[in-house]
């Protein structure tokens, strides 16, 4: 009988539970967006204000990271950030788990990021420019550089997915372990003391940082493609 794998295969629970949780996040974000901008006002209310600050901040950030013309990629990158941040923060809520602590989710996100970057690279540079990007410079070393660049490109989604999964999974796991340890390391009358609380507070920070890293890397990958396209002199595309 094959082993039963649930979630990421390393923690208990049906893998579909995390999918449902991610859909709850999607619906919540959608609902919040709708409520915030249902009747946009010139003098914004609290929710609209928060949304405006978050979105405009993220758009400016992406614009700065990607460079000139980078704001057109901001919706995609900002969505990645808000989605990953929300998924990460879900693990802080007692009884819930971060959907990003499962490889299925992080691989999906990394594939989205990877596909989007490749699509934009082909769109911006053209198929030949895209190929020449992998061929590299100088041209006579291309036959060596091409496989290295391809492997490097394929490593990007792998690193994105595993980094996010590892960090969030580890953070969730530590919280669970600390919560389980409290009856053993503290006197019996203090066994309900939430010693995992500092880790949960730290989890808010790491959730943000991990979402930011994923987003910045995606923006960085886009930037590499765009910089290549816009700054290389004519005929010197590598």
């Amino acid at each position, binding site marked *: 009988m094959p082993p039963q794998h649930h979630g990421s295969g*390393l923690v208990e629970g049906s893998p579909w539970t995390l999918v449902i949780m991610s859909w709850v996040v999607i619906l919540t*974000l959608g609902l919040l967006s709708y409520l915030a*901008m249902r009747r946009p006002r010139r003098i914004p209310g609290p929710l609209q204000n928060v949304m*405006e600050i978050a*979105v405009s901040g993220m758009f400016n950030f992406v614009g700065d990271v990607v460079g000139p013309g980078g704001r057109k990629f901001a919706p995609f990158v900002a*969505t990645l950030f808000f989605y990953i941040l929300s998924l990460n923060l879900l693990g802080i809520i007692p009884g819930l788990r971060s959907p990003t602590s499962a490889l299925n989710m992080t691989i*999906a996100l990394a594939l989205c990021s990877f596909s989007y970057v490749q699509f934009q690279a082909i769109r911006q540079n053209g198929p030949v420019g895209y190929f020449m990007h992998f061929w590299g410079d100088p041209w006579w070393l291309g036959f060596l550089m091409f496989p290295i660049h391809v492997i490097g490109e394929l490593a990007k989604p792998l690193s994105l997915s595993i980094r996010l999964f590892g960090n969030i999974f580890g953070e969730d796991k530590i919280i669970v372990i600390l919560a389980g340890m409290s009856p053993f390391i503290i006197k019996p009358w203090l066994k309900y003391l939430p010693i995992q609380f500092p880790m949960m507070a730290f989890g808010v920070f790491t959730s943000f940082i991990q979402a930011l890293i994923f987003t910045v890397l995606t923006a960085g990958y886009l930037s590499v493609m765009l910089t290549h396209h816009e700054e290389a002199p004519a005929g010197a595309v590598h």
Partner: protein
Amino acid sequence: MEIFEQLGIQPELIAVNIIGFIILLAILKKFLYGPITQMLESRKEDISAAYAAAESEKAKMEELRTDYERRLADIESEARQRMQETVKEAQEIREHLLAEARTNADRILARAESEIGREREKVIEELRREVVDLTINAAARLVDRSLDEPGHRRLVDDFIRSVGVEKS
């Protein structure tokens, strides 16, 4: 794939998660990014318009201020000019009045001198007449003879005139 199975990687879950992300992207684009971008743009335009209006108002105010300052300067200059004119006029009137007074005084003085002269002549004439009368009376008493009056008078007059001629 054994490794995928061990890691719990299930392609169908990955596909569902990708679809979920794409749907979220679509929802956020429609309900969040679009309206917010529009709102921010519109607010930016509003602010730009407000700034432009404020700048225009400021320019107008500056123009008005310059105009008022120029007018004030004109008014001050006009007032100063008027004052100078008034002072000059007053000085002219003063000069005129002084000249007139001087003329009047001279005329009055001349008239007074003339009157004094006339009075003097009159008094001299009266005195002469008195002297003639006294002389006639005295002479009449002395010579005890009476001459006719016109004769006496002519005689004395001649005498006095001769005396006046000698004295002068």
